[in-house]
Every structure is written in structure tokens, then in C-alpha cells.
């Protein structure tokens, strides 16, 4: 139709030439890095049976998925979140003896975006998952891999906010509490806690905790000598303090903040949850956490921790810094094939010399 020839349908995108070149360089850099960390690639299907994922998405995510009916009459869903599709596939192929397994991915996601709101349009995720490992050691590895990837891309001004889902786990109204805490909507948080029957002083303690963003020292000052926190909350805080001390020891003290309002956007989150923020983007550029029950939903019970990066949000700001300016695509002399051929041979020889 002539009136459709200048734009694409919502929920997809195309990019070309220099932009695509930079994109691929960033993806390749991530892939190389993951392999250094002993992660192997995985490829998830473009669509799957809808019923398998029912109940795993929140309402907003659910309303943005594309569904279709195949020729056999089965309802299918297009890949809108790689973590979910990956969990299902891993559940099919893994055996307990295979664990732990380290995987990485980079692929398109397909979901509806509001025609009036292009700010969240994001159609490509790269990410990594560590399956079958639990505890602070595994959590530290996955967050450090994210830091390493950000450094590799030149995104050294990005900060990671890390929280813990267990801060909510003792509450019956987690499905109402989690979004209110994540939105830092303190009147609603208080209302939900009261409805759960918590006394006013307990509500005060919890709201003060959920509000917290800051350094490990500040959290220690806030929480030390507080037996009223409860053992579940105490354990979660100790876990975060341990992790941040590890990151500090590796030189990342300034790049990580403990943020107890980071509680994860999805019902399947458990354990640590984190998001990465850059100074000039309107949304988080990476998010992740632990989802120990997710693979079990698909029949293979194994703990898992991982992250995904919204690569297109990073791409425009990081391309130059990471040493992948589009102008580095060298031009070849036009008009004389022999000269072009000779030039490519010369470059190839140069590359061989540079190779270790």
C-alpha cells in the first residue's frame, strides 16, 4: 500500500550499513568476551506454544506479546523475552549432570510497542545465564560479567543498582507490593503492608529499608543493631554487602549501588535483582537477577542467574568510545578489481601478523 511505504509496522526495526556494522561489532565483542568467561552460545526459537508461558509475564508484558494461531490450531507466542524462551529450551536439553552450564545469547525480540511511544522500542537483547549454580559466588560472576561487558563497550559511566527479592518474600501481597516498591510509591507500599496486618512500627522499618539507595557503608549504618529486621531480610542484606565488597575489591566500588527498591519486575524473580543505568538514557540499559524457580516451571528444576542488555540503547552512545566508529570501515579503491583484490590480500596479511 502506498501509504505504508515509508514506515515499518510497530514492534520491529531495520538498520543498515554503518549502523548495522557498529551493532555487529558490539555483538561480536560481547560474544568474544562471553567465550573468554567459558560461556557457550544458545539460539532460542522465534515462537513457541503460548500456554507454556501463561502466568509468567506481568500484565504489561503480556499485553505487548504477539500471539498467533498455527495451522494445527495451537496458540503460539512470538519471542518477547529471551530469558523465558531460554529457560524453556534449557529445561528440554539439560540433565542434572550437565550443571553448571554457562550460556550467552544475542537475538531479536518481538513485541508490540505503542505507536506514540518509541522511547522503549527495543528489539535486540544480548545476555548471559549461569544455570545450576547458586550462592554469592554465582551471583558475583554474573554481575562481574556484566561489568566486563560494559567496560568492553566503553560504557564505563554506567552504574548498577542491585537489590534483593527476598526483602518481599515474607509478604503475602508480593504481587501488589513489588510494583509499588519498584515505583517508589511509598503511600501504596504502606497501604499494602497495613492491609497485610503489619503494625505501624514494622511498616516504618520496611518503608525505610525499601527507600534505601546508597553505599554498603550507608546500608551497614542503617541496618546494624536492628534485630527487628527479621532473619530473611538480614540474610538478604548480608548477601548484598558481601557481593558489593567483592565488586569493590575488584575496583568497581563506584559503579555499584545497593538499591532496595530494585525488587525485580517479574513474578519469577528470586534472590538478587539488578538494573544498569546510564546518564543519558531514559530507561535502564540492562537488567537481570536470579530466577531459581523459572526452569522448574518448565520441568527441569535448576537455579539460574543472568542478565540481558538492551543493546540498541547503548549503541549510539558507545560506538565511538568502544573503538568501533563506523568510519573504521575502510573503503576500497573503486574501478579496478585487481587493486581491490591486492588491497584485501595486504589487509589479510596484516591481520595475520597482528594475530597472537
Amino acid at each position, binding site marked *: 500500500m502506498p501509504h505504508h511505504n515509508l514506515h515499518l509496522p510497530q514492534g520491529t526495526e531495520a538498520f543498515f550499513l554503518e549502523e548495522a556494522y557498529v551493532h555487529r561489532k558490539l555483538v561480536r565483542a560481547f560474544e568474544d568476551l562471553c567465550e573468554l568467561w567459558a560461556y557457550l552460545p544458545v539460539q532460542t526459537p522465534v515462537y513457541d506454544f503460548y500456554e507454556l508461558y501463561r502466568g509468567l509475564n506481568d500484565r504489561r508484558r503480556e499485553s505487548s506479546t504477539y500471539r498467533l494461531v498455527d495451522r494445527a490450531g495451537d496458540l503460539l507466542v512470538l519471542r518477547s523475552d529471551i530469558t523465558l524462551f531460554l529457560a524453556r529450551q534449557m529445561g528440554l536439553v539439560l540433565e542434572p549432570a550437565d550443571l553448571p552450564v554457562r550460556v550467552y545469547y544475542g537475538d531479536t525480540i518481538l513485541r508490540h510497542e505503542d505507536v506514540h511511544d518509541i*522511547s522503549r522500542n527495543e528489539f535486540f537483547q544480548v545476555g548471559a545465564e549461569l544455570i545450576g549454580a547458586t550462592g554469592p559466588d554465582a551471583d558475583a560472576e554474573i554481575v562481574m560479567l556484566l561489568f566486563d561487558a560494559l567496560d568492553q563497550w566503553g560504557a564505563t559511566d554506567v552504574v548498577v543498582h542491585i537489590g534483593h527479592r527476598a526483602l518481599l518474600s515474607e509478604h503475602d501481597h508480593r504481587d501488589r507490593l513489588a510494583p509499588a516498591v519498584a515505583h*517508589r510509591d511509598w503511600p501504596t507500599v504502606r497501604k499494602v503492608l497495613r492491609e497485610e496486618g503489619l503494625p505501624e512500627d514494622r511498616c516504618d522499618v520496611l518503608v525505610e529499608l525499601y527507600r534505601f*539507595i546508597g553505599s554498603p557503608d550507608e546500608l551497614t549504618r542503617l541496618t546494624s543493631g536492628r534485630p527487628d529486621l527479621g532473619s530473611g531480610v538480614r540474610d538478604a542484606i548480608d548477601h548484598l554487602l558481601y557481593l558489593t565488597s567483592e565488586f569493590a575489591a575488584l575496583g568497581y566500588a563506584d559503579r555499584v549501588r545497593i538499591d532496595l527498591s530494585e525488587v525485580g519486575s517479574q513474578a519469577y524473580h528470586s534472590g538478587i535483582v539488578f538494573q544498569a*543505568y*546510564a546518564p543519558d*538514557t*531514559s530507561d*535502564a540499559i540492562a537488567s537481570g537477577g536470579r530466577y531459581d524457580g523459572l526452569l522448574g516451571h518448565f520441568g527441569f528444576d535448576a537455579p539460574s542467574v543472568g542478565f540481558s542488555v538492551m543493546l540498541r540503547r547503548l549503541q549510539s552512545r558507545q560506538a565511538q568510545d568502544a573503538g568501533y566508529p563506523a568510519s573504521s570501515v575502510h573503503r576500497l579503491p573503486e574501478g579496478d578489481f585487481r587493486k581491490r583484490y591486492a588491497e584485501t590480500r595486504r589487509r589479510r596479511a596484516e591481520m595475520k601478523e597482528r594475530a597472537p
Partner: protein
Amino acid sequence: MSEPLTLALPKGRLQEQSEAYLAERGYSITFERRKLVATDASGTIRIMLVKNSDLPTYVHHGIAGLGVCGTDVIYESGYDFFTLMQMPFGSTRMCLAAPEDLDPASCAGRLRVATKFTRFARDYFQRNGIAAEVIRLGGSVELAPVLGLAPYIVDLVETGNTLRAHHLEVVEELARIAVVLVANPAYYKFRYRSIDSLVDTLQGGAA
């Protein structure tokens, strides 16, 4: 000195009140003629003046990290922001209104309502189990019952003078509307210390 925080203010009535409120707390702003962007004298806030209904869009896209806006406009936008504080001015009511002499029995069946606030109206009636037909208007909503487009309207009511002038009356108050300071969530997370400090100063009174 760190980069100033970016704050969108709505042009019009709320602009004057917001500027006066900020000035009382030490953030004086002077806009050059015809300019819509200015930095306060202390270099703490960079202000941008935008159309009221567009303000959530600017904050959502991170063009302005913060914004002063009515909860009605934010609700219509559908965007999620962090609400940092309620401003002590601009509060109003969202009301259902109808002609003073309307016989409710004459409107049996679906409620026909004209409004600028279609998202709010749809959600409100849905939540309350009321079948309603919502008609979008861009302004002068009180004309809808007068001209026969719809017997009911949903609109902001402050003094009620406009309603009375058109022989309309409030049937029911549907919500209290406040003017709030909001933040783009990612912007807040990155600059939470300077934003918290600004909010403390604003809530603490004159600097």
C-alpha cells in the same frame, strides 16, 4: 560543578505558581524573551517550559528528568514516573457533571460521557462496573450537554463557576487531582543524591 538537573514546567497557570514556589526556595529563574529554556541563578536546575499535556512525554523520554504536572495529565499519558512530592498548589477535583435539570431516568442504559480525560473516564467506569460510552473532546467540554452531544461530562472542577454558567452541576466527585513533582525513573536512579537534595530543599521551605 555537576550538571544542573533538568525540570519541565507546564506553560500557563501552573508555570507562574511553580516559578514563584521555586523562587521562594532559592531557585530564581528568568527567561529571556521568547526563550523556553533557562537555568536558575544557582545553576542547580535547568528549566524547560512545555505544553502541559506534552510534559509527561518530555519526562518519559528523559529530555527533562523531572517535571511538575497534574496527576490528571500523568494518568492520561499512561507513563510511569516516580512521584517525589506533592506541590502545595494547583489541587483540584475530577468530577462527573450533568445539567441541573437532567432526569437520570431519561439516560437509561449506557452512560454517555464527554471528556478530555478519556483514559481516566474509561478506567473509572470500568472499575466501578458502569457501562459507559466515552466521547473524546479537546476542550470546552461543558458545551457537550448544552449542545446535546452527551448528557454527562467528566472534567476538572475548581470553583464550579463554569459549570453553573452552563446550568450544570456536579453529580459526583471521582478523584482528587494534585500537582506533583515527578521523575523519570532511570534519571532518578542515576542522580538520586542531587534529586533527593533538591526535594529536601523544596520541602524544607525557603533556602
